[in-house]
């Protein structure tokens, strides 16, 4: 399955990933609208979806599904905007912004990984067992 793999220890907290992501999907540079978020501090923490799929079962209207590559995707047309997936995400990685009535999430597109200066984030295609280790 395809997912974004993070290495917190390499992250320098530059925020390029957030900028790339929000520009790509919402046409503005706004970290609140990024599917990946860096919590900067003494050590930086990268918060992003690990494609675990808990939200698939939480969604009351089956608007969240795993695609053939293993990526968990939201069908925004079907979504009724309840945000249960936001509250129940074990990683707190489901995005939400009041400008939109649907949540948003990382689809492992890799745009941010391409721009990351330190290699702290990479897109990988892992089998389920390997994924469990992360």
């Amino acid at each position, binding site marked *: 399955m395809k997912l974004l793999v993070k290495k917190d220890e390499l992250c320098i907290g530059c925020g390029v990933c957030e900028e790339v992501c929000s520009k790509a999907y919402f046409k503005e540079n706004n970290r609140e609208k990024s599917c990946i978020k860096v919590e900067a501090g003494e050590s930086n923490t990268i918060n992003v979806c690990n494609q675990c799929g808990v939200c698939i079962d*939480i969604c009351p209207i089956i608007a969240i599904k795993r695609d053939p590559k293993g990526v968990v995707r939201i069908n925004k047309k079907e979504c*009724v*905007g*309840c945000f249960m997936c*936001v*509250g129940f995400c074990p990683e707190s990685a489901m995005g939400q912004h009041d400008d939109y*009535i649907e949540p948003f999430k990382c689809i492992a597109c890799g745009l941010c990984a391409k721009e990351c200066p330190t290699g702290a984030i990479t897109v990988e295609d892992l089998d389920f067992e390997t994924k469990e280790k992360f």
Partner: protein
Amino acid sequence: MMDVTVLKEAHKLLAEYKYEPAKLDRGYTNKSLYINIGDNRIEEKQISEDVKEKFIGGKGVGLRYLWDATKPETKWNDPENEIVIAGGPLCGITQYPGAGKSLVVTISPMTDLPIDSNVGGYFGPYLKFSGFDALELQGKAEKDVIIFIDGNEGIIRIEEAPLEAIDGHVVSEQLTEMYANSEEDKKNISVISAGSAADHVNIGLLNFSFYDMRRQVARLKQAGRGGIGRVFRDKKIKAVVIKFKGTKGNLNNPVDQAIINKTGIKLHKQIHDLDDQQCRMRQIGTANIIEVMDEYDLLPVHNYQYGCHPDTKNIASNVFIEKFITQGMPDGCWFGCSLSCAKAADHFEIQTGPYKGHKVTIDGPEYENAAGLGSNCGIFDPAIILEGNFYCDTYGVDTISFGTIVAFAMECYERGIIDKEITGGLELNFGNGLAQLELLHQMSRGEGFGVLVGMGVKKLKEVFVEKYGADPDFLNDIGMEQKGLEVSEYLPKESLAQQGGYGLTNKGPQHDEAWLIFMDMVNNQIPTFEDKAEALHYFPMFRTWFGLMGMCKLPWNDTIPLSNATADEPAKIPEHVQNYINLYNGVTGANIDKYELIRQSERVYNFQRVFNIRRGKGLRKQDAMPYRSMGPVTKEEYESRQERYDKQLIELLGYNPEGKTTEEKIKVMREYRLDQYEQLTDAVYKRRGWTPNGVPTVEHLKSIGMDLPELIEVVEKHL
């Protein structure tokens, strides 16, 4: 897949109405839909600002319309009696759990008073999205009809529908299939139906469907209390079907979506973090309290004689979880309900009756079903309880009333007041689950002792006295009804405040106004009459508010925020009260606080009280409770709690029980407890702004902005 074309071809169009669906503005469409199936009239009405201000929505607006539609002497089966269905300004939001409720009101065949019932399912939200805050159904059809509302196309039809089933689970499936264009489309349909027993008995209910996309079945939630299904079938309505495609999270067009999102997500997180340790609503729903009630001696057993039973372990919540309930489903009855209390048993094989051998999906069991069908009737077999639950729902029978009536009939049978000849051969001993199921089948067929049972405890008492010479005083003591409505499934015997919580209500003894047993009996937080009166003012008003909004009560206190441990008034769950204020202000743009919230309810609560008085009831004498709810009626009951009762005689009355017979002690205890209830009644009426006879005073009506001329006219006759 069933073939519904034959059913559809038999439909005959009686009336069609086209309209432009109104868009919502700040939680309201400002329109209501009036349908008269007597003369096939379909009209739109404007909802005035004045009605919105005083009655808000939901049951407030419903009661207003019902008052206007009926006369003081209107009976439940008169054509002018209405069934009004309305959400409320918050109904239909998807971010906060429990926001899809419909409130249904009508003149009840059980109480001859307005009844109100709060029900889930998709109908209420879809009605609003289809352009109507409320639906009024009036008149009586000649032949069975279906009303269809298409909220996208703006079409309403009344059609004769002779071939569809009457039973709730079948007709809901048939009509979901018929009106959906595809499997995908089924989630956009909601059906209101009753059931075959509602054709014959007064305890008939309404089923509201919601399509479960994962189980691929139309599931049912119930507007259970007070016989609304009976009125529905008396009007010859087979079903009301609504279709709306395009649900989104912002269709209520709120003023401040952001605060609604924030408030909702906060609660989702809280439920995610805490529910597994708290009520396990997501795992088992309200059934989590079966064993809790047993442990605290509050579970009704053998017609409320006792509060616990050694066999309760056989119907404890884990038994249902392990043996019957399917897990891993988001069982909300409206989108966004992360509390998800609506449980279902799948592929349950029915053992009796017309659906014997069918494998069905059963919604439940809820606590009330397990206690009412189960322990109160001495039945501790979970499969029988589930089957009873299934048949109650599909036949359109209120499980609470049914459970309490059967428990009463069983006690009468055990005590020899009635016998096998009277029951038509049924051995109505406590614990006879098959006899209980047979009573249900009889109701569905409209024959036998079951039909009499379905008329309620009040009717049974009359018949047992008049025809079989029973002692009326004893039956009034043990028959757990008040105002004609059966008591719901908690034993209030040792909690004076809860006796008031049941007795000092508008519609009858249902626990949705106040449930104070722990605060009173266990926590000892409200020791004085004034304390109890304050609680019996606050909680009924607070909880009325859910019915004005189209909200569910469960997310208020079946999940508790961490902040509550240090809150000033933990019983009120202050953080959640603030959530509701945020939601209301966020949707409507108003600026209410927690005091105005109570005031909003007070207006409608007092209106309903005056409605009762207008109908020649609603006074102090109707608020009396059967003594079984207040203390030990029989020797066995006294002796089962002898230590507790003897101690109370000494400590509270200074009466020495030494050497006294049980009968003597019962008598002394009875005088004391009845007097306590009278004193409580005085205190509560005073706190509510009512006279000692239970009549709202003109000053009080003025102070809450409800000095409407038609109300003053009613109360003045009693002042």
